[in-house]
């Protein structure tokens, strides 16, 4: 039983899909410095590199000093945190995946994970607004040609612009194969029609990655194509800002495309490549989303712990009541484990291996941990926890979406089971 689970990473030689082959060949394994001055004798290191310590410190200072004080107001009004997003952009905290040749820092997934956790600790709505950029840019990074990358990635580095990833529709989220948005070729243009829903940054994006059906009869894997669509083109109709349970600082909207003319130069990769492209981006964007859930869980834990150290009932601080202690202990166990799994999922991609199963495991676990941690944090605060003057009820409302977006909790488990079946075929 042990050797079956010993290493999922040898799956890569057989399960490499065309998209990850494309991605791996394009990206030189990023040999980030994972260790510090301590040279581990047994191969694994858990220390951040000096650079990563610097990133973490910067992100943490910015998040805790600037974002935390502003977050409650964004939650009440739903206002888009433009000023602080611009500040984050100036500090280099955004768009970290953009390759160096287009002006970006080309940091690894693990580097990004460290930053995202710190931002989500302060406000996961804010970190989602930042992360929406990464998701929208990823298909361009993976499959864009040089002109597309220069034009659309370059401008994101030059200015604090926003980007959205438009795949979900009102009638299909998990069932991407059934999307209805269509693009019909007309000369050297594509005519785009359809409706997308729950698009993060939708109201503020400068451009969108849009997945559309270009072949009405083919199977899902070859029926769709990805496009870069600019917000200001005629026919792009941006819906109203949706009022959600949580992460209210993040802007989610419906976007309608009415006969939008998309030049063929904005097609990403060959016709029919879109589905694989859209899915391939997830291997790189799921780990940071998991990191967001870890950050939220950590915040829930820290707030509950602080409270438990000072609140007294029945003659003592409530941390000394075993059931309160047990809740905090379970929170800490979940946070540490989901953080390690998240780091692993980023690390696997950074060293050039297929990380799909780890990315799904990390996202599945971190989202569940975050929801339980936030709910338990409210419980530890008791009546105060239910009240909006205390910080934990926002965490509980913010946490729920982690089990839904970027692949639902159920979809993650389906992906993991499929990967396991593949491993079983290879080894058992």
């Amino acid at each position, binding site marked *: 039983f042990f050797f079956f689970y010993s290493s999922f990473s040898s799956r890569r030689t057989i399960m490499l899909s065309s998209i990850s082959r494309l991605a791996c060949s394009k990206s030189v394994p990023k040999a980030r410095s994972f260790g510090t001055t301590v040279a581990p004798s047994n191969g694994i290191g858990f220390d951040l590199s*000096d*650079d990563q*310590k*610097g*990133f973490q*410190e*910067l992100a943490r*200072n*910015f998040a805790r000093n600037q974002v935390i004080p502003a977050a409650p107001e964004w939650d009440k009004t739903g206002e888009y945190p433009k000023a602080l997003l611009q500040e984050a952009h*100036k*500090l*280099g*905290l955004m768009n*970290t995946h953009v390759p160096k040749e287009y002006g970006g*820092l080309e*940091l690894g997934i693990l580097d990004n994970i460290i930053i995202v956790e710190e931002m989500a600790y302060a406000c996961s709505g804010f970190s989602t607004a930042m992360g929406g950029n990464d998701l929208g840019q990823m298909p361009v990074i993976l499959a864009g040609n040089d002109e597309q990358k220069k034009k659309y990635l370059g401008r994101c580095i030059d200015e604090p612009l926003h980007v959205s990833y438009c795949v979900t529709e009102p009638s299909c989220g998990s069932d991407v194969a059934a999307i209805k948005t269509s693009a019909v070729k007309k000369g050297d243009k594509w005519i785009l029609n359809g409706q997308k829903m729950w698009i993060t940054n939708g109201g503020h994006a400068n451009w969108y990655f849009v997945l559309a059906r270009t072949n009405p009869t083919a199977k899902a894997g070859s029926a769709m194509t990805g496009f870069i669509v600019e917000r200001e083109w005629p026919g792009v109709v941006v819906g109203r800002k949706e009022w959600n349970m949580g992460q209210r600082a993040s802007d989610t909207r419906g976007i309608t495309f009415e006969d939008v003319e998309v030049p063929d130069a904005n097609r990403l990769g060959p016709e029919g490549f879109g589905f694989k492209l859209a899915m391939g981006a997830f291997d790189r964007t799921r780990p940071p989303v998991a990191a967001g859930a870890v950050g939220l869980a950590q915040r829930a834990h820290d707030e509950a712990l602080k409270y438990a150290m000072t609140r007294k009932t029945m003659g003592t601080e409530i941390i000394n009541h075993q059931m309160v202690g047990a809740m905090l202990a379970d929170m800490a166990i979940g946070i540490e484990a989901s953080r390690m799994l998240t780091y692993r999922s980023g690390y696997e991609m950074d060293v050039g291996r297929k990380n799909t199963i780890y990315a799904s495991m990390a996202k599945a676990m971190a989202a569940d941990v975050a929801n339980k941690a936030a709910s338990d944090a409210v419980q530890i605060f008791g009546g105060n926890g239910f009240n909006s003057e205390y910080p934990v009820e926002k965490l509980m409302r913010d946490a729920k979406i982690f089990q839904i977006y970027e692949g639902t909790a159920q979809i993650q488990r389906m992906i993991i089971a499929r990967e396991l079946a593949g491993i079983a075929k290879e080894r058992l």
Partner: protein
Amino acid sequence: MKAFVGCKRVIDYAVKPRINPEKTGVVTQNVKMSINPFDEIAVEEALKLKEKGIVKEIVAVMVGPSAGSLQLTNGPLAMGADRGILVEIPEEDANPLLVAKVFQKLIAKENPELVLLGKQAIDNDANQTGQILAGLMQWPQGTCASKVEMAEKQVTVTREIDSGLRTVTMDLPAIVTCDLRLNTPRFATLQNIMKARKKTIEKTTPKDLGVDFAPKLKVLQLDEPSVRKAGIKVATVEDLVGHLKKTGTI
């Protein structure tokens, strides 16, 4: 003009220090260390002067353990200082007189015209190094600066003192120690944190500089402040006055 900025590695301001079991010092193992916040303000002031074209080169100087190169790199160098000097000593809390003597030797080597320091370190709250250094160098000093203005070969410092603000104008070279309201230190950007790793930190020791760093003071005992005793509640003003008279307060 070349400027020195003194950067001390201290226990992070957010950490609650604990006294070690031997009662001779504070626990620093596995404790988060940072650049002294007043020193960050000094770095920021130097950067502002560089942006104005007045200062050409900023040298961040640390007297501390070799692990301090991490704080130097991710802090002052990432913020924009040009290079660093790390004078390695075994312990964090070095005596201000000895630190000033080290600075004196470095100044003789490098000839900066302006030396910026934080007004005090948040671990020992000594508020001495800048003043002692000015005495050793026989240079003018403007301490507790809340405003610094440079003119041709002169610096005008607005000092925060107990009775208000005092302005002093000094000929260069001079020592300035920086207070809280002087500026708000910038965040180092991610790009600059990565670039900082390429900047040089020259490492040396007090011995190499000809300074005897053997401590002249010995800490006999360190205790936490005694726990505040509970007060008592009294029913009337007369009782209150009676108690105050009994304790000799009035």
